[in-house]
């Protein structure tokens, strides 16, 4: 009988002790953000979705060899006489395979880098066509994807606008 009540009181005081930690934390400012409406900016050097600059690229194939999942493909451009030049005709990254490991960016010999990681962490795809991003001369850094149904290049949806995101909370 005595043991029963001492156990009950013991559990009761343990709950009070635990709740005191909860109450202490309750008075501190919130550290969560309401995600779809508030977005955080990653630190510089974040490995987000890859961007590509077709003007800078010298088509040296280093990134193709550096990629562990073989998700990069490219083709040399040729001039009027049919000779290869140090430019890409097209360049594509399959984001369905990409590991986001930065080996391609590190291997890129050009300055500035022709392929690099953005801070975009919201890579969403609704169809498989959207996963393969393609770049050609005149395309912007984000690139376009080839829609097999309509047979034309389309702009990818679901890219995060880093400008509209908010600063990271400091502890």
């Amino acid at each position: 009988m005595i043991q029963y009540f001492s156990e009950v009181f013991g559990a009761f005081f343990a709950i009070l002790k635990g709740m005191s930690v909860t109450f202490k934390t309750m008075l501190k400012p919130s550290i969560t953000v309401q995600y779809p409406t508030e977005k955080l900016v990653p630190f510089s050097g974040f490995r987000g979705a890859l961007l590509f600059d077709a003007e800078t690229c010298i088509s040296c194939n280093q990134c193709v060899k550096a990629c562990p999942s073989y998700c990069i493909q490219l083709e040399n451009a040729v001039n009027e006489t049919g000779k290869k030049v140090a430019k890409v005709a097209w360049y594509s990254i399959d984001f369905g395979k990409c590991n986001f490991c930065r080996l391609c960016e590190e291997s890129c010999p050009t300055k500035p880098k022709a392929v690099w990681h953005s801070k975009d962490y919201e890579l969403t795809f609704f169809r498989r066509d959207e996963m393969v991003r393609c770049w050609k001369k005149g395309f912007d850094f984000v690139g376009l994807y080839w829609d097999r149904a309509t047979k034309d290049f389309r702009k990818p949806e679901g890219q995060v606008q880093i400008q509209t995101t908010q600063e990271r909370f400091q502890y």
Partner: protein
Amino acid sequence: MSNSPAAPELKSDQLFVNLGPQHPSTHGVLRVGLTIEGEIVVKAVPDIGYLHRGTEKLAELRGYHHCVVISDRWDYLSAMNNNLMFCLAAEKLLKVEVPERAQHLRVAMCELNRIASHLLFFGTFGIDMGAFTAFLHAFREREMVLDLFEMSCGARLTYNYIRLAGVMKDVPDAWVARCREFLEFFKPRLKEYDELLSFNPIFLDRTKGVGAISKAAAVDWGLSGPNLRASGVDYDARKSEPYSGYEKYDFDVPLGGDGDCWDRYYCRVREMHESIKIVEQALAKLQPGPILGKGVAKVPKPVPGEAYVHVEGARGDLGCYLVSDGNMAPYRMHIRAPSFINLAILQEMLVGERMSDVIAILGSIDIVLGEVDR
């Protein structure tokens, strides 16, 4: 009795229960085929392989730099330790030196990762036991560690930070300051954890004396890491076979007594204390210098030979056996995955336990299915 996970022939008062593969407390895709007699488990057969990706075979087709990326995907909760383990093995084959700054950075990162991994265990084990608050507290701190990783290498889970003969990139001074800030923030939190969960009578009732592993059984089944140390066996690869300069660090190896669920839990909590000490020492030792050693080609081709390296991962003794035949890819890679070996004891341990304790035991073993199935 056959060891098949399929439903066996049952006696009239027995019942076959599938735990998983989608059960939340298996922390992944593990199926345990349980035969129960009333409340008591009479047979338990873990069924693994749902997450098998064939990464050991995959490594035979990839270069050594690529394999570091693959190593992130085994134990994704402490990927730094996996990176380190593979890099140490490859460095042994390539016979390259690692600069001192890189060594200290590696140690700091690995210990931070151990903290993050144990915090996740702490949180999820609390949830398994019905204590939800501890989870939120643990994830708040884990978030800070992941922020530190994001700052240093740009990723939050699959780091690819530790590279052959060094690390990916140097950390800024702001990182060191932020890391110290985190450690100062974290120390008093550990006391709160004890109040919240460790010495809560309800939690003690559910874990004390449940699923005890004797010293002999722990050694027989080849357990390692906190599971082994909770049984009172003093074995830690950081002490017995120091790597990456662990011999220069001053830390203790926490040991348990009975080897029950609570001991395994508290062993990990105390390991977080030790990890804080190691990170502090590593930060104090950081001197300016190179972070990447010389002598690693873009496509390394080590001389034919073999190397075995084991490190103390967050879940136990993590080993990598590499065979090189002189080509750009390893001829054979084998991983000694601690989760896989720790999981094996379940079939003996669960027998005779109550159905409601199965989750406590499974949670306290702390497996990561990415590593079990590889």
